[in-house]
């Protein structure tokens, strides 16, 4: 099988959500000492980009997106140790600190966003649920993150999103660290009102918004 064939199969495995094939091909890439950056960029990443396009066209829905993200993660779990061993760095990754705000223990939506961001090449630091508001800013500073993503599922806890933006402003960090908000009671108006940089209506939209902002 030619290199091009393997890369095309990797892309297809992600599009079709075939986890076995995605992991089998990742192992094959290691065995055959393929260029791992090429494997990621021209194989798997192309697949996940195509999945995003299919979602934009309304042909794919959340379950297909999640399945493809799972496949991407499964392949990366195999490739990552070798990448680290060889000290290979995948492009300049955009770093995201994500979590559900203080007082709110919902996490599945936030986990989906984290997983979609990771599948699309973002470096994701997941702080979990019920995260102290100051911790978001402290962690983002410490990790030199580009984004803070704040999830809130309650009308009471969504106020925490506003507070985090205020903390960033107080510390003069609001220009450098962008804030994306999401969650059931959140909408574009709320995002605008509190001065958030973006609003993710769903997991894939969050990815698209983050991509748009990070590309300037």
């Amino acid at each position, binding site marked *: 099988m030619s290199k091009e064939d393997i890369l095309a199969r990797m892309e297809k495995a992600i599009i079709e959500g075939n986890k076995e094939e995605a992991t089998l091909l990742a192992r094959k890439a290691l065995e055959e000492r393929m260029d791992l950056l090429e494997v990621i960029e021209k194989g798997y990443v192309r697949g996940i980009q195509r999945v995003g396009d299919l979602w934009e066209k309304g042909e794919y829905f959340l379950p297909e997106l999640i399945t493809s993200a799972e496949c991407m993660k499964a392949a990366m779990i195999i490739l990552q140790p070798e990448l680290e061993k060889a000290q290979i760095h995948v492009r300049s990754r955009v770093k995201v600190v994500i979590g559900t705000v203080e007082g709110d223990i919902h996490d*599945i939506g936030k*986990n989906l966003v984290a997983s979609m961001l990771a599948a699309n090449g973002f470096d994701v630091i997941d702080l979990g649920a019920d995260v102290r508001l100051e911790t978001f800013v402290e962690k983002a500073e410490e990790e030199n993150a580009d984004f803070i993503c704040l999830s809130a599922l*309650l009308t*009471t806890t969504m106020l925490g999103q506003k507070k985090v933006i205020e903390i960033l402003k107080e510390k003069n960090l609001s220009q450098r660290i962008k804030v994306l908000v999401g969650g059931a009671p959140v909408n574009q108006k709320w995002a605008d009102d509190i001065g958030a940089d973006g609003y993710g209506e*769903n997991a894939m939209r969050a990815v698209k918004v983050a991509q748009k902002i990070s590309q300037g």
Partner: protein
Amino acid sequence: MASVTEKIENLKIEFEENRILRLIGYKTRSMELKDPVKKLIDEEKQKLDHLLHPVSIYTILDYEETNKHPIFNGAEKVALCISTIGLELEEEIKKLMNKNEMLRALILDSLGSEAAEEGAIQSDRILAEKARKMDLWPSKRFSPGYGKWDIQEQRYVFSVLPGESIGVRLTESCMMIPRKSVSFRINFYKDKELSTRKK
């Protein structure tokens, strides 16, 4: 006067396929469900016999026994209820997420939300029936955090009902654990015109 708490344990949970599909993110009804997703839904449904433990507790108070919050105004009696499907399903969701099985986790989470809602609907029906047997007119059910009943009123509901007896507790921010739990009240009116329930 101490209120009497009753338990409802024989809740039969059934699922409407279309609602589950919507909950996991499908938008159009006409689209054909892809076989792998359908298979996952079926497999996760199979687990529910072991994972769902639906149970509710309720009490029916005379208006004078309540905290006389304005939303009880005009009611002869007020039914308060806490309904849950238990914690086991949430623990399974956590395990799935840790294993990178996000879609299975989402499916199970959606089934859990639907089950919790169904448990509340059935408990609501039982309480509405009790109102009618008392020759009173039940309102629709309302949960703390909706309309003029602030989320903080969860504390009142839990001060009246022993949530712990069915394994439900409140966090500092008034969220319920297990998350797949619903608390609500129904006002029982003498005057049919005050009831907002259609049937």
